[in-house]
C-alpha cells in the first residue's frame, strides 16, 4: 500500500467561522478514518463535503453533532468548536449540542407518527412551545420554510411515512429546523430523490442559508457546485482541498481533487 499524502490545500475563509475543527483524528477501533482534519465552516454559508465513497465525509459530519458517540468503537481526538465552544468539553451537554446542530440524514427517516407530531417532536423535547397555539405556529412555520406546507396543510394528522420520498425528506428538514438550530448538517439529503424534488431541496437550502449555517455531504458534484459557497474534498480520510466552490470545480490545486472532479479516479 502506498503511503498517504497528507497535504491539505486551504484557501482561508474570508468571513466568520461558525464551526472550526482543528487537528481532528478519528479511529474506528484500530482503523483511522480521519487524519488531522482542519476545516472551518463559514457562518451563513453552505459548505459542501465531497469525496469518493468511504473517504470519511459522513464520519466528519457526524463529529460535528457528536453522533459518533453512539458508536462504541469510535475514538476521536482534536478540537472542534462551534462559536468558540468546545463541543467535546465535559461541561457541554450533548442534548443541548444537538438542539444547536440539527441533522438531516441520507435516507428520509420520518418517525412513524403524524406529520404534525414529526415536526412537533423537537420543540416538545426541548420545551420550546409555550402553548398549543404556539406549537401549531412552530409546526406551520417550519413546514412553510421547508416548502411543504401547501402540500400537507390538509393532512397534518396523517402519517409522515405516507408521504413521497421528496416530501419525507422535506418533512425531515422541517423537523430539523423546528428547533431553530444554528447549524444544519445534511448527509446526502437528495440521494434518494428525483431531480424535481432535488431541485426543491436545493432551492430550500439556498433559502435556509440566510438563517442557518449548513454543511452538506453530497456525491453529486453538480449539486455541490450549485448549492455551496465553499467545498471541501476528502480522500482516504484526508482533507485534500478546501476553498471556494468555484475554484474547486474550475481550477483545483491538487491533482487528487482534479482527478476526482473530472472523473479520472481509478
Amino acid at each position, binding site marked *: 500500500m502506498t503511503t498517504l499524502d497528507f497535504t491539505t490545500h486551504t484557501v482561508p475563509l474570508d468571513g466568520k467561522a461558525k464551526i472550526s475543527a482543528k487537528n481532528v483524528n478519528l479511529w474506528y477501533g484500530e482503523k483511522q478514518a480521519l487524519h488531522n482534519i482542519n476545516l472551518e465552516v463559514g457562518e451563513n454559508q453552505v459548505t459542501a463535503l465531497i469525496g469518493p465513497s468511504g473517504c470519511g465525509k459522513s464520519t466528519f459530519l457526524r463529529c460535528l*453533532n457528536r*453522533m459518533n458517540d*453512539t458508536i*462504541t468503537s469510535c475514538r476521536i481526538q482534536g478540537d472542534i468548536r462551534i462559536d468558540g465552544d468546545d463541543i467535546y468539553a465535559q461541561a457541554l451537554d*450533548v*442534548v*443541548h*449540542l*444537538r*438542539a444547536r446542530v*440539527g*441533522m438531516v*440524514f441520507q*435516507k428520509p*427517516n*420520518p*418517525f*412513524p*407518527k*403524524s406529520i404534525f*407530531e414529526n415536526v412537533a*417532536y*423537537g420543540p416538545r*423535547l*426541548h420545551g420550546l412551545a409555550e402553548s398549543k397555539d404556539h406549537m401549531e405556529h412552530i409546526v406551520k412555520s417550519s413546514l412553510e420554510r421547508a416548502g411543504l406546507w401547501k402540500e400537507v396543510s390538509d393532512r397534518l394528522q396523517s*402519517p409522515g411515512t405516507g408521504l413521497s420520498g421528496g416530501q419525507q425528506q422535506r418533512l*425531515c428538514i422541517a*423537523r*430539523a429546523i423546528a*428547533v431553530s438550530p444554528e447549524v444544519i448538517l445534511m448527509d446526502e439529503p437528495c440521494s434518494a430523490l428525483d431531480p424535481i424534488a432535488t431541485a426543491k431541496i436545493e432551492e430550500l437550502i439556498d433559502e435556509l442559508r440566510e438563517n442557518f449555517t449548513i454543511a452538506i455531504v453530497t456525491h453529486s458534484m453538480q449539486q455541490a457546485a450549485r448549492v455551496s459557497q465553499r467545498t471541501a474534498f476528502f480522500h482516504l480520510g484526508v482533507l485534500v482541498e478546501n476553498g471556494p466552490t468555484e475554484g474547486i470545480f474550475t481550477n483545483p490545486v491538487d491533482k487528487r481533487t482534479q482527478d476526482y472532479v473530472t472523473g479520472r479516479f481509478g
Partner: protein
Amino acid sequence: MTDVAGKFTVEPFSASAEKRERFNRLLKKRYAAEARFKMWGIVAVSVAVVFLVLLLGSILLQGASAFSTTKVELELYLDPAVIDPQGTKDPQTIASADYNQILRASMSKLFPEVQGRRERRDMMSLLSSGAAYEVAGHVRDNPDLIGQTIRFEVLTDDLVDMLRKGYIERNVPEADRKLNDFQLGIYDKLVATGALGGAFNTELITTGDSREPENAGLWGAVVGSFLTLVVTLGIAFPLGVMAAVYLEEFAPKNRITDMIEVNINNLAAVPSIVFGLLGLAVFLNFFGMPRSAPVVGGLVLALQALPIIIIASRAAIKAVPPSIREAALGMGASPLQTVMHHTLPLSMPGMLTGAILGMAHALGETAPLLMIGMVAFIVDIPSGFSSPATVLPVQIYLWADSPERAFVEKTSAAIIVLLLFLISMNAIAIYLRKKFERKW
C-alpha cells in the same frame, strides 16, 4: 475459449447448435428441480395437515359428547315434615335436610312395583349421588316451594349417561355389565315416559373437580390457569422487556454481556421440570410459600417464559430501523427518550407476539407444576392467588388417569377447552398487535 489477450470471452448461447442444446438441457434440469422442490413442499404440508386433522378430529369426536349430560325429570313432593319440621325457614336447616328421602319417595311413586331393598338401592343408584345436593340447593334458594310438588331435573349417574351415549353394551352377560337387567328396565321405562333425556352439560363448565364424573367440571382448572397466567405475565413480561431493552440499547458490549446473552439462550432450552424443581426448592422450601398456589405456579412459569420473552423482545428491538433511532438522537433526544418514544412502541407488536408465545407455552405446561403440588385433587374454585388450585393441563392429566369410563370423554372435552383457551389468547395477541401497529 480465450482470445489473444488471454481473457475469457463468452459467446451468446445461440451461437451454435451445441451451445443451444446444452443450454436447453440445463434449463430442463432447472425446471425439474423446481418442480421436485414444490412437490416435496406440498407433501410436507399435506402430511402436517393430515396429522392436525386427525388429532383435532379424534379429540373433537371423543370430547363432543362430554358437553351433553343425562338428566331425569322427577316430581318431587317437598315434604315440610322432612325438610323443615319446625318451620324455621332457616337456610342452614333447609340445606342440611335429608333430600335423599324425598328423591326416594318420588321414585317409589313412579315405580310402585319396586319393593325389595336391593332393588330399591339399585333403582336409586341410577340417580347421581350429587342429586340430593342439587335439590337442596334449589330449595334453599326458593324456600317458598316447601310443601309444594315441583317438577325438577336431577342428574343421573354417569353409568346412565354412558348407557344413553351407547358406551355400555346391553347384550353382554349381566355379570360383566355395570348395570344389571333390572336397572336397564327402569332406564327404559324412564326413557319411555320421556322423563329421562339429554341436556347441555353446564356442570362441566361451571363446577370444580369431583370424584363423580357427572359432577366433575373444569371451572376450577380454568380459573387456576387464568390466575397462574396473570402472575406469569405480570412478572415475565415487564422483566423480559426491561432486560431486552437494557441488553439491546444500553449494555456495553463486553465479555460479561456476551455471557449473559449465551446463558439466556441456554435458559430457553432448559427442560421445564428443572424449573419445577427450582420452584420447589426456592419458593416452597426456602420462602415457605403455599403449596398448590397459582402465585407459585405463576412464578415458576414466569422463570420459564422469561428467556423466550427476552429473546423475542430483543429480536423485535433489533428490527426497529436504526434510522429512527438516529433521527431521534439527532433531534436531541436522550437514549432513554429514544427508547420510550420510538423503539419501545415500534417493537411492541413483536414483543407482544413473543409474550403470547411464552404464555401459550406456559399454559400448556404440566411438569413443573406437578413439582409444586398443583396436581392435588381440588374441588373448590380457587378464590385468590394463594388458594389451592390446579390448572387445565394438570386437570387433563388427572382425568386421563381416572378409571371411570366417563372420564375418557371428559379428558377430551378438557383438551378442547384448553385449545379454546389458547385460541382466544392468540386472538387477543393478534388484536393487540394490530392495535399497536395501527397506532401512530
